[in-house]
């Protein structure tokens, strides 16, 4: 059976959602996500996909419909980008706190103001504290595989999962990828079940006002207060890392792909300089690594696949032996540093011997990321390591500015 395709990243996502048998789709068009919602709408209308397609009037409502459907027992899906993600921000927090199993694809795009339709990661990064699991796909195959695995993860751990992929670089480019068989995916994904499914035969009131203190219920049993509920989300988000690895191992067995679900290293084993990036940028670094290796530099690149929960020990284990770590990102926590850089720095903090760290900001608002610029920044850092002033080291360096 040849399930090979050459299609855009957006279509790859839509096809994965079809294989995952999502039942309620509610999405609002926004560049560069739009083709996902168009493709899903087309497949449903043609009867190729058995689902409800709800043409919502906003992103806030899109996630609202998914929240309602997921609470009432249906596997739901939405996709968005940029300002659409920000518009649904309160719903993100809501879905996480309600422990709803759902999946959303975010086609990463810079946020306004100023308006930008082009790629960067600020949309996802700005929502990193909401309580959603966040993974980043590097290519179209990963879009397919991660989306399918995401449904299983969300439904096992009851935490919503965001599958990120780069706007335009992945969403609109064409790459070859394999689609697993529908029957095999059905076997891989059990039926949807939400722990607190709304059911008149077993009535519960969900997401009610919860007092600061723990309080007894009608049976005299003490129930958690707000803080216990929130701690449980955090603890179980950490635990979800293990489940993601288990799912990946099972996916590898069933479909022959996977193996590095949390961090995907390239030439890192003996690397003195390790580059870290998320999404398609990590793949772009392969050329840089190859070139520098040929010149004798021991460079490697680590693609971070799972950003939230932050894989503290996985990352530390790979990076700690290196001499220097260069973190390249397409977003930042304004007024401080790159968010990924800060998280990574914190992961390495407990180690008495740890690499020097460098933060590079690149590609904001779709500014072209030229491989030769990447190559030059890495080489400069490798060459000038000894002479860099400490205050320069902990300050974001901007690559590709034009003025």
């Amino acid at each position, binding site marked *: 059976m040849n399930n090979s395709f050459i299609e855009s990243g957006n279509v790859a996502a839509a096809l994965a959602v079809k294989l995952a048998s999502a039942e309620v789709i509610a999405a609002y068009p926004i560049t560069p996500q739009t083709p996902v919602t168009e493709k899903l709408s087309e497949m449903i209308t043609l009867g190729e996909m058995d689902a409800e397609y709800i043409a919502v009037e906003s992103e806030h409502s899109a996630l609202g419909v998914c929240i309602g459907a997921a609470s009432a027992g249906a596997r739901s899906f939405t996709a968005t980008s940029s300002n659409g993600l920000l518009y649904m921000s309160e*719903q993100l927090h809501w879905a996480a706190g309600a422990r709803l199993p759902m999946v959303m694809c975010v086609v990463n795009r810079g946020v306004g103001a100023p308006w930008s339709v082009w790629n960067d990661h600020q949309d996802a990064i700005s929502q990193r504290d909401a309580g959603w699991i966040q993974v980043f796909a590097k290519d179209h195959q990963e879009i397919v595989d991660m989306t399918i695995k995401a449904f299983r993860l969300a439904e096992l751990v009851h935490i919503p999962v965001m599958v990120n992929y780069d706007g335009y670089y992945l969403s609109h480019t064409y790459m070859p990828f394999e689609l697993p068989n529908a029957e095999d995916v059905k076997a891989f994904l059990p039926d949807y079940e939400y722990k607190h499914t709304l059911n008149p035969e077993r009535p519960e009131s969900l997401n009610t006002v919860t007092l600061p203190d723990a309080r007894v219920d009608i049976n005299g049993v003490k129930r958690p207060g707000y803080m216990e509920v929130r701690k449980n989300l955090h603890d179980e988000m950490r635990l979800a890392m293990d489940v993601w690895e288990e799912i990946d191992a099972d996916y590898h067995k069933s479909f022959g792909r996977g193996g590095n679900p949390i961090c995907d290293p390239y030439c890192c084993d003996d690397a003195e300089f390790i580059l870290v990036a998320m999404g398609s940028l990590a793949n772009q670094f392969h050329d840089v690594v190859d070139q520098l290796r040929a010149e004798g530099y021991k460079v490697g690149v680590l693609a971070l696949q799972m950003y939230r929960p932050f894989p503290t020990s996985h990352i530390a284990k790979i990076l700690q032996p290196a001499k220097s770590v260069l973190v390249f990102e397409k977003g930042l926590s304004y007024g401080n540093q790159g968010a990924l850089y800060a998280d990574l720095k914190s992961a390495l903090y407990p180690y008495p011997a740890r690499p020097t760290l460098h933060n590079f900001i690149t590609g904001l608002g779709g500014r072209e990321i030229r491989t030769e610029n990447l190559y030059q920044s890495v080489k400069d850092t490798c060459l000038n390591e000894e002479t860099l002033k400490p205050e320069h080291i902990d300050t974001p360096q901007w690559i590709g500015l034009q003025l």
Partner: protein
Amino acid sequence: MSSIAKTNVINLTEEEFVHPGNRACTGCGLSILYRIGMKALGRDCIFVVPPSCLTVLQGLYPISATQMPVLNCTFASTAAIATGVRAAMKRRGKKTQVVAWAGDGGTADIGIQALSGALERNEDIIYICYDNEAYMNTGVQRSGTTPRRGLTTTTPYSGKKENSKNVPEIVAAHNPAYIATCSASYPLDFHDKLLKAKEIRGLKYIHIQTPCPPGWGIEEHKTVAIGRMAVESGLFDLYEIENGKKQLTGQSSKQLKKKSLRPVGDYINLQTRYNAYDEEHVIALQAMIDRKWEKYRKEFSQE
């Protein structure tokens, strides 16, 4: 004549669907309509509730006063959440009624976008707006349905400068399956309109004027009486719109035969939220009501 069932106090079911000892204010109009409305809806329901007085009435975790499943949601998204629940019911092949209960804020102001979307899609839900004419849950701030010159904490001293939104008319412009206006003081009319709504497919919108003692500035025992005055004076009308056709119901329909209605001054003067009304304003309001009912008498005289 309207085709509404005729439930009376005697044949109204004794079964209760909401527990006492809840956090609603003493004499709360919402409590009355909620309690009686649920008798029409029955247990095969899922409710969707945004931030509002009902969020509090319904109970704080882990105790719920409502005996049906309730999904609390963010303020702006009631109709969207209800849409999602409805979609899941469709997938599961269930005929469970999906009923949204939102206040005037969650319907006419912050909730209007989602409601408009759900109306445009004609989602098969019952959407109930209990309109106490201000943001009562947060302490009586003005809303889009607060009447002109109504006093609230954000329209103090001289009252609201703007007219209120006519939400049923906004809803009617979307041409949904069914629209009805009701009053908490006529709970049986509400009950029977819900019975009717249950049988209709598409979006059923019910707007129910809900007296609120602390917010309106009346004594708690006057809750039912004040709502009656609103209808008897012809200020608030009980009607239905089906297939674009409007007809008065219940008490409002009965009043078509009367040459004059109860003076609106009775209603206004009993509420401290109307302290910014001078005699001239009452006269102007009365004139507006008189004009409206002149039109009604011509329009509905063929019944």
